[in-house]
């Protein structure tokens, strides 16, 4: 039996179900019942109850793309500050023929290869150095909303602002556009999504706001 509803914000200690086998991320089992341990929205996926957190620091997962600033370059490792007082590391391969051309202060987007006692290791494969743009920081829990289901929100943002977006799952984002007005509009949109992540009709409001800011107010937003 499920004790919560789909769109209800659950809080730590709240009872979710009496089937202990359903306990997933953000839940715990006590005396045969499943309770929430973090605040968020409870979702049942393939019979497993997990909480989608609405706040909190970024927890690195393998496969995540994160954005950071190179903080140190050593012979066997490049250190990258990914925010949240966390430093990740890139270990260039020993037989690397083309050395990574990255310096301290560079902004990079890379995939998390491993997490654990040895720290967070980023992959060299697919590493991108970001050439320019405005760097902003949002709460990591809101990044999925900024990306949208299958990237839908990000598509909207790109289309409406004409900007490039590099989005790190850790909450760091770079926006680079044809001119400052478009870049500021992009930043405003990201901030709006962060603030209103858990409301309905958000995509529509974002589009309206962007069109107003960039002077395309009379068009039908279903274009």
């Amino acid at each position: 039996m499920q004790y919560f509803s789909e769109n209800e914000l659950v809080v730590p200690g709240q009872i979710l179900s009496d089937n202990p086998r359903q306990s997933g991320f953000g839940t715990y089992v006590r005396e045969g019942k499943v309770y929430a341990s973090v605040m968020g929205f409870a979702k049942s996926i393939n019979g497993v109850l997990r909480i989608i957190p609405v706040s909190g620091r970024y927890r690195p997962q393998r496969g995540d793309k994160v954005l950071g600033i190179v903080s140190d370059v050593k012979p066997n490792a490049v250190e990258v500050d990914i925010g949240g007082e966390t430093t990740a590391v890139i270990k260039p391969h020993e037989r690397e023929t083309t050395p990574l051309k990255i310096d301290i202060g560079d902004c990079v987007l890379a995939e998390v290869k491993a997490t654990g006692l040895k720290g967070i290791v980023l992959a060299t494969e697919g590493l991108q150095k970001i050439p320019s743009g405005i760097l902003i920081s949002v709460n990591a829990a809101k990044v999925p909303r900024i990306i949208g289901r299958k990237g839908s929100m990000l598509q909207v943002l790109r289309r409406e602002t004409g900007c490039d977006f590099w989005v790190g799952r850790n909450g760091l984002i770079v926006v680079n556009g044809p001119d400052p007005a478009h870049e500021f509009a992009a930043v405003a949109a990201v901030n709006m999504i962060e603030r209103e992540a858990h409301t309905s009709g958000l995509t529509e409001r974002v589009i309206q706001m962007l069109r107003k800011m960039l002077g395309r107010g009379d068009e039908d937003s279903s274009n």
Partner: protein
Amino acid sequence: MKIRLIDENGLRVDGRRPDEMRRMRMEVGVLEKTDGSAYVELGGTRIYAGVIGPREVHPKHLELPDKGVINCRYHMASFSVDERKPLGMTRREIELSKVIREALETVVFLEEFPRMMIDIFVEVIQADGGTRTAGITAASLALADAGIPMADMIAAIAVGKVDGVLVLDINEEEDKYGEADMPVAIAPHLNSIVLLQLNGRMTPEEVDKGLEMAQKAVKKIHQMQIEALKRKYRVEPEGLET
């Protein structure tokens, strides 16, 4: 000259009935630089709570290999009390930091962040009785706001005895001139006490009755906490990338 704390109608110095709480206000996510924060007002008591973490442990030798560490600092602004409080931590602040930490530690799932620490800051900007309990209530909100995994939220209130009568949510005057004060913090879903102190004289029956009063009040406070969290994080997610 003895101050009368309960008048002939059974009302308290501020006109409250013995089982009546003062007006309480809560807001979550009030500070930008913490990972979680809350502001609580209870009568004249005003408190900010902030949580930073999980973060690396400093100094490193305090790191634990299998679980996280919690630090708590309960601190009062110099202007929060009638007589200006000098700078630096007083013995009272140190004791309260400890009991508040232990209360919150009880419910936090420390095993989920080994080798890390969580800093909890409770800043009292005005004190009018019940600061440690309002502080715990605020800290619990801040921990939830910071996404820290916990078994339960914590709600707290102080029960006192004035002129022989058990009263709920003592204010400063009642604290100063009453016969006893008993702060209680409870994990509502677990129905367990996580902080309990008594300062003064109470019979076992009075303690029982006092705990009952506290439990009833804690239910209401907990409900307010849930509402405060919901206000901050409104309704449905749409198009979430899962």
